[in-house]
């Protein structure tokens, strides 16, 4: 028994993405955002996409490239505060935005990855975020139904991987990546270092390779990954 090899050229890895797909994108700010896969998706050209991402990065960075190119119809997110361009698109009606509480977005994605239907939560139950949500009674208390989220593809950034797709993250570049890596039909991971099988210890794996479909080795990192000067 040996574990299969899932390393791919980047074009091959993202070839399956189609117009109208839902695509999850890891990252919280710069850390963990798969900048290179995002550029490949711009080149690929799939349109009418629904993106799921914590934030919209900053103007001219990360998923803002996909917003600029007009490939995104809908964005499921938690906060756009650092991207005035995204807020402009939202206010003009060119982009439909669905806001979630951050931890609830995380749980909805995780529920999708765990094969659950939904989670019940009381977060935001007395705020406008509760509007339009299904409510169920349990134990004499009302709960909001927060449906599981899955995607056609997930774009993941990891620090290290092996050819089977076991992934390890560093620092705050973990964020939504391990959750999204469970919740898509096709999971594509760009990684800074591809180690040989066995190079990543069984106990240091954050995302088991079972969840991952394609591993793309990054070359030298572009400026977009670097520390942002503010």
């Amino acid at each position, binding site marked *: *028994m*040996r*574990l*299969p*090899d899932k390393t791919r050229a980047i074009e091959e890895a993202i070839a399956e993405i189609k117009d109208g797909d839902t695509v999850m994108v890891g990252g919280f700010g710069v850390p963990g955002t798969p900048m290179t896969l995002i550029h490949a998706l711009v080149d690929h050209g799939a349109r009418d996409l629904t993106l799921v991402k914590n934030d919209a990065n900053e103007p001219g960075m990360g998923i803002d490239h996909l917003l600029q190119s007009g490939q995104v119809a809908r964005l499921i997110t938690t906060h756009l505060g650092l991207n005035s361009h995204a807020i402009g698109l939202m206010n003009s009606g060119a982009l439909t935005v669905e806001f979630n509480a951050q931890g609830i977005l995380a749980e909805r994605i995780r529920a*999708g*990855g*765990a*094969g*659950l239907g939904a989670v019940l939560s009381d977060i935001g139950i007395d705020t406008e975020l509760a509007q339009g949500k299904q409510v169920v009674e349990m134990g004499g208390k009302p709960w909001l139904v927060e449906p599981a989220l899955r995607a056609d593809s997930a774009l993941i950034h990891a620090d290290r991987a*092996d*050819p*089977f797709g*076991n992934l390890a993250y560093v620092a705050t570049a973990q964020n939504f990546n391990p959750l999204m890596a*469970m*919740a898509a039909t096709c999971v594509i991971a760009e990684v800074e270092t591809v180690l*040989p*099988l*066995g190079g*990543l210890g*069984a*106990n240091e*794996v954050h995302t*088991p*390779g*079972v*969840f991952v479909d394609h591993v793309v080795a990054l070359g030298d990192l572009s400026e977009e990954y670097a520390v942002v000067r503010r």
Partner: protein
Amino acid sequence: MVARAAREIAPGMVVNLGIGLPTRVVNHLSADFPVCLHTENGLSGIGPTRGHDSADRNLIDAGGAYVSTVPGSACFDSATSFAIVRSGRLDLTMLGAFEVSATGDLANWKIPGKFSPGAGGGIELAQKARRVVVLTTHCDRAGNPKLKQACALPLTAGGCVARIFTDLAVIDVTGDGFALVETADGISATDVAEATDAPLALPDTPLPTF
């Protein structure tokens, strides 16, 4: 039958082998066969079983057998382990059975009044693996058929079984009930039909043997 069942595993699959007969399938997979074996207590990439003296006290499969890892194994918690199962990442599971019905219902966890230790992870494996096959003796110890028109015992999951490997035959569960696919060497279609408590469709072509 175990060797025949092992050939059901296609290259690249993620596979869970249930407690009992299915566990033995691992001995029929070559060292360079590309496959990922999963066990629900939190390991992907199971390697060969270990004896007492070379065992790692912290490394067991769901049946309690001491196992090893392979290059690229990963360990995870029980929630992640069943996330793999329920989210459709398990290509195949091989399970034992008390009874299988002609519609693919599986009963393998409870004999009311006699045996009710709990279902463990069996319900999720049976309900959510992309393909569920059963590995079992054709009849129970008393000689009663395990393949029946309907299960009498409490179900593990309904309509989940695609194929059954027994000591007598390979049988598919089709939309029209059981269909004989292969027989064991020296076993006739009539032998299989007599040991099966439901109609058994025969193919028009000669039956392969295993």
